[in-house]
């Protein structure tokens, strides 16, 4: 289940749960003055913690490395299409609000929203 390189501009190594060596795909886009940080799960090429489980810990590491402020960015998690026969490996994008309660923390993006960000 190799993830296509189209999903990221760089591989971002990070310390996952219990400091496990982990990796994700990373893209940063600026649209209308707003920074969109897109982290992509790499499955077999991520030796450690998933981007979702790492959550805020990963976001903080990206912000530190890229000199960003968490409150200033739109943080998106991407589970990429892996061309698996199994439907639960389809492409999905979720916006994560680390300051919201659990019920409102994740919001799935529509295809149109994704297109607008990635065009």
């Amino acid at each position, binding site marked *: *289940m190799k993830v296509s390189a189209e999903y990221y501009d760089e591989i971002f190594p990070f310390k996952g*749960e*219990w*400091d*496990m*060596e982990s990796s994700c795909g990373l893209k940063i886009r600026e649209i209308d003055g707003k920074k969109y940080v897109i982290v992509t799960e790499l*499955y*077999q090429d991520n*030796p*450690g*913690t*998933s981007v*979702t*489980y790492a959550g805020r810990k990963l976001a903080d590491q990206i912000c530190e490395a890229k000199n960003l402020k968490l409150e200033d960015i739109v943080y998106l*998690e991407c*589970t990429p299409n892996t061309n698996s026969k*199994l*439907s*639960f*490996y389809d492409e*999905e994008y*979720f916006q994560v609000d680390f300051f919201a309660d*659990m*019920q409102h923390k*994740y919001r*799935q993006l529509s295809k149109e929203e994704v297109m607008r960000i990635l065009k």
Partner: protein
Amino acid sequence: MDTIKLKLIYPKWNKLPGQTTFNLPPHGPVAFAATLPEYVDISFTDENVEPIDFDEECDVVALSMMLTTQVKRGWAIAEEYHKRGKKVLAGGISTMLHAEEMVNHVDSVFLGESEGRSEQVILDWKNGCLKKIYNFMGNQPPIESVGPCRRDLYKRDLYNHKGVQMVDLFNASRGCRFSCYPCAVSYLGGRKFRPRPVDKVVEDMAGIDNNRLFIVDNSLAQNKEWEKELFTAIAPLKKKWISHTIEDDPEVLDLAAKAGAWYVYQAVYDTSDYIKERVKRYHDYGIGVEGTILFGLDNQTEDDIKRLIDFLGEIDLDLAEFTIFAPFPHTKGHDDLLRQGRIFDFDWDHYNAGQVVYQPKNMSPEKLQDLYDYAWKSFYASETQESKMFRLFCNVALREMEEGTYRQRDRRLINKSFGRDVDRSVRNVNVRTESQQLKLN
């Protein structure tokens, strides 16, 4: 070094209602025990087969936990020992999966595999500088360092049903190169298949005083050459064994059969001819098949599940085990359902794979629960689970008789089941049948 008395405990969990319960000797605690230095004197209690004597003299306590349904009981046990002023360590699979919560309940959490690492924990405890977390995640010890388990710690009579000794669990490898949707093994043991050296496996297996084993490796079908070498090497031991999937290759299946393959767990995930043929091929080589059927994935509708249940009648499975998808932490399934806000039950006691803890995509939780109950009822309607198990047991006993390795039932334990008395009265037989029927209805 003075002797240190360590109380090693495997906490109990609630078994699924209505199902035949067999208690197998747990592997994790005795694998951990084998990594402790000689000056540690271990007293082991598997709470599933005997009660804990909290007042038994000990210096330190270690909890070994495999299942998510063990963790809350583990925390309660830790509390009891804390009242007695004892330090409590925790390790094992579910400790790793639930480590964030575990640190709040025990004095020290061990993450990872313990070969070459456990003595440091003991020394730190002795020197009064026990760390809250020993973190070896992603840093596995050399696979060559995995040695024989401390099976001498088992009270064997407690793993015996009416004179028949239960299988011993055995690891021929660790890790997994697959990373399946509902599974956390790649997180726990590394996303790499790590086969043990075959000579070590043979030596280890030969030393087990039990002719029946369960090779609990996630899948043996990960490295064909190693698999062939393994089966060729263990054949002379004449052990009979259960395992998960074996490579679907005539040469490998033939070697497996000659090496003593008794029956395998095979996932039945659709109604394809491939599955039908896969089961047939195992049977062609004299290997039994227990189908494992997982319900509740997002690609399943009610009709899909009903078709799958009907399909089982066509493929001649020896046994079937049904489970409901459970979003265990550190699986993709957990991440997906968490993001989608579909997990409604975070009580770890309910993560027993027989209870719905999330909103299924294509049906209500109640409907999924009903279909799960219906599957058990339907599959075992004409012949009970215990009866089907007995037939598999007869198959292996006959093979052992032919090979001269059959051991008579232990007459001392003929009226015992896992340490408890068996009531063989007619009335009891009726009660069992009735209770099974209740479940089926």
